[in-house]
Every structure is written in C-alpha cells, then in structure tokens.
C-alpha cells in the first residue's frame, strides 16, 4: 500500500491526483496512529511446543470463542487425528516387531492383525471416512492390544501426538452420529500450523474496554516454517516463546536425529540474538507442564544432553519441582548469556504453563498483559 502511494505521488502532476495522494497519505498516517496502540505479539517456538493451543485459548478467552459451526468444522480434524494416530501406532508396532530382539512383545494378536491392516490402510488415505461406531470399536480393540500399548509406552521414539490417550479414551463420544466437539476436544486437536495466522484481541473482557489491544501472530514451528518468521519481526512488543519442557526425550518431527529440547535451546538462542528483538519483551512459556510432571519421574532429565549434569534429589512432588527449577535455570542462563548488560532493555519473564488449562492460561495472560502495560508506562516516564 505504502509503495503504491509513494509511486503515484512521483508520477502525477495533476493537482486533482495530488490532492488524492495527500488524502491517502493522511489516511495512512491515521491508520498508523491507530495501529500504534495495537501491540504486536509473536508466538514462537519449535514444532509442537503448544503455540497454536495458546492461540486457540486466546480465541476462547478473549474473543467470541467457537460457535457451533466452528466446533463442527473440527470434526474431520479430530477424526483425522484418530486415524493418523492409530496408523502410527500400528506401523510402529510392526517396525518394532521386526527390529527388536523380543518380537513377541510387539506382535499383535491374530484377530487384531486384520483390524490393524485395515485401519492402517484408512490412515494412509487422503480422505478419511467419518468415524463410525464400527470403526471406533475396531480402533478401541486395537488400542487395547498389549503390543500397541507396549509401542505407545515408547511413543517418544515415534512421532505419537500428545493427545493420543485423550482421543482413545473418548472414542465412543467422538464416533457418535451427532458428535459436536467440545472446547476441550478442539484444544486437544492436533493441527500442524503452516504459514502465519493472526488475531486481534483485548484481554480485559467486555466490562472494561480501555485495555490494550493486541495482535497475536501464530506461526508454524518446523524448520521450514521458521524462515517465514522474519517477515513478522519488525515492531514486536513481545515474543511469547513456547518451550515444551516435556519433550526432552523426543526427536523432531522434521529431523529424527535431533532432540527436541536441543533444538528449542538453539532456537531460543537464535531468537534472543535477533537485532529486531533488542527492545522486545521475552515471555518464556515453559509449556506442557502437565506431561512434564508425569514424565520426569519415569524418564530422567539427563537423557537430554543439555540437562546432562542434572542430579535427581528426591521423589514425588519435590522431585518434580526440583527438575522444573533446573530446567528453568537452564533457560535463564541461556537468556542472560545472550543479553549483554549494556542492552538489557527488555523484560524477561518465565511462566510455567499448561496450554490446555484454560484457567492457567487466562491467569498467565493477565500477568503478561500487566507486565507489558507496566513497561509501557515506564517507557512513557509515568512510573
């Protein structure tokens, strides 16, 4: 737009058009002024770190939420998730049966074999059928097969989505003829984001209209998606960096040689080094705490190279806290390594989040909002 206008100003001599150009210029200025009040927030982070879940939560919390039509539009997505997940588990089981020393552990019972093959075939299709009661029963039988369960416990080696258990436990409801997804279903649904999506919102609710207006950008997190990020880097008020702390024993979707946590570390490092973000607040969401607290008691943190020096101290809740604090400290260290004291002109906050937990996200966002407004006042010299 700006380009178009400046070009027309250069090429026209006609006074009429000049007046028009001036008008356009004025409008742009006006718009820019209005835009100035809108704070730009970016959701960044590696793939499957929970950016889009946060994004959906914001939609639910501070916008009108999802109406029935929108909820219904998630039916194919959720059904696709079911088919893809069961295919993944089935194919994974087969692979393990071939490569492991104990193939019996990963061999499906003979009657489930046929079901598995059929479901795997459906999962490989381009268009999935609607999930019927029959199919759902088949999936449930297969899911309960010990071999599939065994495979699922090694889910970190496959690319099994976090929502697997949730989907499988709700199969009956999902396959109902009149099924309408709940808010929770929508939050659990896994859709790999590609490109850029944005919404505008004001976190203060309807009774108080004077709050800040935010424009939130959600992006894809896989490597190929990250090169699109730079288009958004200018004039950012705050970056919300999502790090899935539960993924310390998983590998990347796009590169199975690479540990997800190591990638997150490098990515966070890269984000902090961006010249564009020298004055941008960094809000670090240590996300997926719900999975983390379950996992950390079974899988020691030091399986990840970055946490190699971790020593577990106790058990139970204390141990979870200890592990979390350790991870938090690692990220803190990384931040301060990349923020030279002479340009510490940005705010850095760490939040413990579970993107699926609506109350927690609401609370966190209130805090983020407060921090950003405070900083705004500080900058204006009012505080």
């Amino acid at each position, binding site marked *: 737009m700006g380009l178009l206008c400046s070009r027309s100003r250069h090429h026209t001599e006609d006074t009429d058009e000049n007046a028009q150009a001036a008008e356009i210029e004025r409008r742009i200025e006006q718009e820019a002024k209005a835009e100035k009040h809108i704070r730009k927030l970016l959701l960044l982070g590696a793939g499957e770190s929970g950016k889009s879940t946060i994004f959906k939560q914001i939609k639910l919390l501070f916008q009108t939420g999802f109406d029935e039509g929108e909820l219904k*539009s998630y039916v194919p997505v959720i059904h696709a998730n079911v088919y893809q997940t069961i295919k993944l588990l089935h194919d994974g089981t087969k692979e393990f049966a071939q490569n492991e020393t104990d193939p019996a552990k990963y061999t499906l019972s003979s009657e489930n074999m046929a079901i598995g093959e059929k479901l795997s075939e459906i999962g490989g299709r381009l268009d999935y059928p609607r999930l019927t009661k029959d199919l759902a029963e088949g999936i449930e039988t297969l899911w309960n097969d010990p071999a599939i369960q065994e495979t699922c416990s090694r889910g970190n080696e496959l690319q099994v989505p976090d929502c697997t258990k949730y989907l499988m436990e709700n199969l009956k409801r999902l396959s109902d003829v009149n099924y309408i997804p709940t808010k929770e279903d929508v939050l659990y649904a896994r859709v790999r984001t590609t490109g850029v999506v944005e919404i505008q919102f004001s976190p203060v609710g309807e009774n108080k209209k004077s709050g800040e207006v935010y424009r939130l950008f959600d992006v894809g997190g896989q490597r190929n998606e990250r090169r699109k990020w730079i288009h958004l880097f200018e004039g950012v008020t705050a970056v919300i960096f999502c790090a899935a702390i539960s993924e310390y024993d998983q590998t990347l979707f*796009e590169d199975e040689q690479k540990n997800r946590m190591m990638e997150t570390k490098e990515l966070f490092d890269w984000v902090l080094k961006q010249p564009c973000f020298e004055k941008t607040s960094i809000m670090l969401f240590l996300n997926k705490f719900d999975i983390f607290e379950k996992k950390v008691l079974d899988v020691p943190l030091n399986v990840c190279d970055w946490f190699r020096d971790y020593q577990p101290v106790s058990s139970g809740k204390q141990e979870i806290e200890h592990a979390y604090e350790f991870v938090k400290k690692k990220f803190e260290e990384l931040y301060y390594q990349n923020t030279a004291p002479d340009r510490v002109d940005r705010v850095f906050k760490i939040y413990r989040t579970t993107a699926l937990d609506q109350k927690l996200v609401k609370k966190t966002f209130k805090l983020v909002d407060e921090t950003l407004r405070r900083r705004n006042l500080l900058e204006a010299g009012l505080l």
Partner: protein
Amino acid sequence: MASGCAKRGGCPSDYVAVSIAAICFLVLLSRSVLPCLIHKAPRNNSSSFWIPVIQVFSSFNLLFSTMMSINLLQFKTKHWWQYCYLWSVWVEGPLGFGLLMSCRITQAFQLYFIFVKKRLPPVKSYVFLPLVLLPWIFGAAIVQAKRPLDSQCHMGLEWTLPVAGLNALYVLALLAFTRAIRHVEFRFDELRDLWKGILVSATSVALWVTSFVLNEIHTDTSWLQVTSRFVLLVTGGILVIVFFSISSHQPLLAQISFKNRQEFPRMGLALGIHDSGLLFRKEEVRPVDPNEPLDKLLLNKRFRKSLMEFADSCYAGETLHFYEEVYEHGKIPEGDSIRRIYMARHIMEKFIVAGAEMEVNVSHKTRQEILTTQDLTHLDLFKNALNEVMQLIKMNLVRDYWSSTFFIKFKEEVAMDKEGWSLSPPRMSLVQGSDDPFYQEHMSKSSTSRYSSPS
C-alpha cells in the same frame, strides 16, 4: 639472446603466451560471472553452484602455476615465493589440473548415478570430490619428499612419465563414466557436451603432456624450451575455457534460470508437460462447493489459483506449488523415465531437501524415503509427501480460505464470468480487462484464464 631468455625466461613469445593465458582467464571469468549478474540467478549452496566456482578457481591455479613454474617471466632476483615445489607441484597438480579433472569426474559420476542407477548418488559431491583428488595430493607429497626438481624446476624423465600417466588416467576415468551413460537419452544434450568435453580435454592433454615432457627432458635445447612452454601455456588457456563452456553439469539449471526464463517459467514446461486437457472452460465457471473433497476441488485451475494466492499471502504457498509440480510429475508417461527423473530431481531440490528454496513441511520419515529412494522413476515417489501436504492444506489453509476475502473475490469472479460467458463475446472481457489494475498480473501468471476479473 635466444639461449639466454630460453633459460631465464622473458622471450617475446613468452610474453605473448602470458597475454593469451590472461585473456583466456578473463574470458572464462566473464563467462562464469556475467550470466549470474545479468539474470540475477538465485545463488544456492548446492553442488551446482560450488562445482563451477571450484572449476574457475582451479583454472586460475593451473594457468598461473604453469606460468610460474616454467620460467616464462624473467625475474631479476629470486624471491622466496618463486619456490619451485609450491608452483610446479602443489598448485599445478592437486589445486590445478587435478582439481579441474576431479570436478568433471564428479559431475559425470552424478549423472551416472542419477540416470543409469536411477537413484541419488550415495556419496555427496563434497565428499566425492576430495576423494577423487586424493591421488593427486599423495603424488604431490611424494614429489615433495623425494625432491627431484632441479634449479630450473625441471624433473627428469623417470618422474615426468608417472606424472603424465596420472594426467592421462584421469582423462580415462572421465571417459569411462561417459561410456557408462552413453545410452541415456538426455533431454538437454548432456551427453554430447560430455563427449565434446572429453574430446577437447584429451586433445589438449595430449598436446600438453607432449610439450610438458619435451620441456622437462630437453632442458638444453633452447628453441624446444621456448616453443614447448609457449604451447603449454596457450593449450592450458584454451583447455580451461572450453572445459568450462561445455557444461555437462545441470545444464537444466542454466536452461531454466538463464536463457529461457521467459519461455519456461516452470520445470514442467521446460520438459514439455502441458497443462492442457486438465480443464474445459465450461468447468471453470462451475461454482465451487466447499464440501467437495479437496483433491477434486484442486483440479479446478481457477480455484487452485485463488487458493494459491491466499496461501502465498499467509506465507504457506509452498504447499500448493508442491501440489502443482507433483501433479505435473504424475502426468509424465510411465515409460518416459528420463523426463520423470528430471522432474523428480527438480521437485526434490525445490521442495524436499532440507533447506530447499520452498521446503515443504513433511515428516522426517517421508523426506528420507524420497531422498534415499532406489528408483527415481517410481510412480509413487512423492505419494506420501503429497498426502502429508494435502492434509496440511486441508486442515490448515482451506479452513481459513473459505472465510477469506480471496474466496469472496473468487466467487465474484466466477459469477461475473458466467454472465460474461453468456452475454458478451470473449473479446469484450479482454477490453474490460485492460481497465483492471490486476489484469497484467493475471495475464502474466496464467495464460489460460483469459477472462480476467473486471472487478
């Protein structure tokens, strides 16, 4: 005088030879750099970029070291940098002729694997090239250790013959690879280029080796000295130019990005895959029903274009570009394996390889499956990747598309077209079109949608 300058260097013919070599190198440099500057070819980090660069580098080494090592120029005092072993052994051998030939062999090796073995080379070119170069490095190290050179930088017969043998061996290796791919019917004259390259290099190597041997052995015959080194440098100059000009490596890239960008904006067109028969005009006007399956919807070119514009606007366009090119790939007849290979390689390099220009968001497994395929001509090579990408389009882009302005615009266009189709002769809309600021864009992007939007 003759005997004096024959020994010390600086005869008139020597200066002529040096100027010819300098001109040769300048021509080579302009040929390699100018197309990039004029056409602003995108620079990528693949071997197709680095191998020519290395060729230019080694060409310079070859010419310059030849000049330095055979006393062409007369220097009043001996400088430390005129060290014989540096020029006539290291720079001339491993960094000059050896490197130049290794580049060529690498290219032939790649072609051999892709078109004869029908899979990607098992060794990356940045590994293969140093491997091929190894014998030269060993050779140079042996010479350095045994120190056979005299004060005039000449080595005796017992050393000259093995060195000439090594040179000839590399020409033979190139010949062998070329023989292996002689049955392949290349689309872009790779084979003819390769044969030409071999012919030229074999001739000049023969000439070169002869003069090299004469120059090395008959150190006391002054006319022979002067002539042979003249021939040596001039042949070297011609060799590097011709060698570079006959590009057998990825001529396609050159075809598409330099010469025929206007004619062949896409690989599919360069290979002669036409988009005709995809759609009839009547179908194009058909309104789009969001409930139809995506693969059916995408067959509608108009719709596809609108969706692509939408996807581009939210930085997710690579998905649809990938769909289009895989679609074209699928239209190549099964028996036409050569065209399939070209197209498959093109798609891999543009969409699949990690870090590619338009890398698509697919899983590690799918990417590895494609890159390690044992059959580049396989019909379902991209099936899984396309499946993943289609899911991405379906769950992500299309959902947002229905509520975007792009869809509204598309619907309007279709409605307008319907009227235009029944009321006015086709030419009318062309006239209308010229008023439309987007008209130019439409026309340049797609040649078939002649009915541009009179919005």
